């Protein structure tokens, strides 16, 4: 497997473009708005799994706190929408209903700026990014690596989850933020069942995939992969390893935060369950099944797993066994396709690979001696 080469960049671009085309024309074949809403959710999961692929698959940072970014993004959007709810669900002076029930007299200071959509959308991306910047700076400057990074990010997730649940007066606690107004932007209304919402999500996923592809094929992306392979070797070539790791974590957090905002649109509420351990672990499973070292693989992994999950749990015959089936599927993929489902695509022979096979054969033949001169 070691010598296996990935396809050239043009083949990748074709694959990514085909995927984008499929998700963009999908609504033409779906008349059921409920079903379209489901697909929109799957695409959001695809986006957050793709975000994990940047940090985990490319830079080797297994961030078990990915749900922190996702959840914070979701809450930022929900706060803006909550402040726009029609008066009947809002207390005196535009105070959100749950605050009225909790005897809050005036809007807390950090809620104020969320009257502005611009601020809320920027915050949905920047809050997770700044948090990642802080965590990354401390963790990576201290040369924390591997499983310890995962433990720290997991602990952070648990802490933030507890704080959100505990501060009910400010956050809505267990109930989260419900009864949200739909997002109205550029004359469009993004309610959960609208085509506009689906297209917004599909276009976001497509754009994120291509931007992500540009990043991982840049020199920065190459150095991220080198760090994944051998951190010290990179350091002694003169690169500031911690800066690259922090960058990967921040980029991943920014995309995950954006995905969280879209998730609020498609669900019409935000809940502490978005910001919890099961979500984080699911993201890891999606990315692993699809192929963590591939952006498209991770995204498709999320779509396939959640799609199969959704249809199995909706089918009466599998009502009691679907978790078992999902578990078995996960084990089979991890055992037999350690690089995920996308590695099946990598095995499709293309024109250029014959030359590479020949090169690999030459190397194998000359393993015993170097013919330098």
């Amino acid at each position, binding site marked *: 497997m070691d010598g296996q080469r990935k396809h050239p960049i043009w083949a990748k671009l074709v694959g990514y473009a085909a995927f984008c085309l499929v998700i963009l024309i999908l609504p033409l074949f779906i008349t059921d708005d409920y079903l379209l809403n489901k697909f929109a959710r799957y695409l959001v999961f695809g986006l957050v799994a793709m975000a994990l692929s940047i940090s985990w698959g490319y830079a080797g940072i297994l961030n078990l706190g990915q749900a922190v970014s996702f959840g914070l993004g979701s809450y930022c959007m929900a706060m803006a929408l909550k402040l726009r709810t029609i008066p009947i669900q809002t207390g005196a002076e535009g105070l959100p209903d749950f605050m009225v029930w909790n005897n809050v007299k005036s809007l807390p200071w950090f809620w104020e700026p969320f009257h502005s959509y611009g601020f809320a959308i920027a915050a949905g991306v920047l809050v997770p990014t700044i948090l990642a910047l802080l965590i990354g700076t401390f963790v990576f400057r201290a040369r924390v690596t591997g499983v310890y990074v995962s433990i720290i990010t997991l602990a952070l997730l648990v802490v933030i989850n507890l704080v959100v649940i505990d501060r009910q007066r400010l956050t809505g606690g267990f109930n989260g933020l419900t009864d949200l107004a739909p997002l109205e932007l550029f004359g469009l209304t993004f309610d959960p069942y609208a085509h506009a919402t689906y297209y917004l999500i599909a276009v976001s996923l497509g754009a994120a995939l291509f931007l992500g592809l540009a990043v991982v094929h840049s*020199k920065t992306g190459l150095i991220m992969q080198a760090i994944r392979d051998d951190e010290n070797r990179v350091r002694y070539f003169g690169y500031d390893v911690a800066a690259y790791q922090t960058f990967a974590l921040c980029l991943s957090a920014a995309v995950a935060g954006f995905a969280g905002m879209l998730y609020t649109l498609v669900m019409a509420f935000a809940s502490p369950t978005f910001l919890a351990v099961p979500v984080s672990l699911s993201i890891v499973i999606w990315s692993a099944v699809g192929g963590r070292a591939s952006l498209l693989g991770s995204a498709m992994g999320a779509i396939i797993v959640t799609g199969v999950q959704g249809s199995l749990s909706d089918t009466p015959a599998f009502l009691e066994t679907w978790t078992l089936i999902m578990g078995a599927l996960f084990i089979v993929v991890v055992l037999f396709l350690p690089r995920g489902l996308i590695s099946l695509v990598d095995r499709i022979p293309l024109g250029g690979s014959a030359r590479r096979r020949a090169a690999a054969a030459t190397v194998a033949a000359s393993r015993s001696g170097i013919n330098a001169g």
Partner: protein
Amino acid sequence: MPANAVGATGGTILELRDITVEFSGFVAIAGLTLDVHEGELRCLIGPNGAGKTTALDVICGKVKPASGKVVLGGREITRLEEHQIARHGVGRKFQVPSVFRDLTVRQNMEVALCRAPGVLGNLFRFGNSGASEQLEKLAELVGLEEAMDVAAGALSHGQTQWLEIALLLAQDARLILMDEPTAGMTAHETAKTAELFNRLKGRHTLIVVEHDMGFIKEISDIISVMHQGRLLAEGTVREIETNAEVRAAYLGSGGISGA
């Protein structure tokens, strides 16, 4: 910059002054002072535990000395971080060959070619750096020109050693530290490595830690012998072979030739 000081050895490029390194009570280096000249190939030998690898670790910043200072080209680098020292022109080859196994040979070299180390600047650099020709030449130098698009993990042990050497050349460091570069190589490969090192002399300054005396005789100008964390002797192969103190240090192992 580097590569232009062809010919005879120039001024002092590296000075180690009274370096002391302790690992929780164990003194690995005890007052080491060493000068290396520009363009020279210096061999560093000594019995096991003499502190050779630790000396290289101090120079490249992996280990911070308890006292003493390291001066590179007139600038003190003792307290700098590893990547800063690397940017000052120090390259390091490790005892266990370390390359990026999941990347191709070409990608390995692109990483080593560290012209601009910044994260954001490198976001806008794509594909080959325009140095393909230079990289192909380096690959040819170490016999990997046919393997440019092969994953480094698929190379043999000897080829991996050669790849790491090529990476250091791509990095184009002024001072290259080699820790047992011929470890695990066949006799044929070792001979080729000696030939390569002789070609590098003058263009780069090299410090080579080695045990293989045959190899050292092939490549060295001046040998520095370390013993118990100190510099014991310095001189040509002949001088070192006849040095009484060196013989005593290697007592029981038949002098340096039997080490």
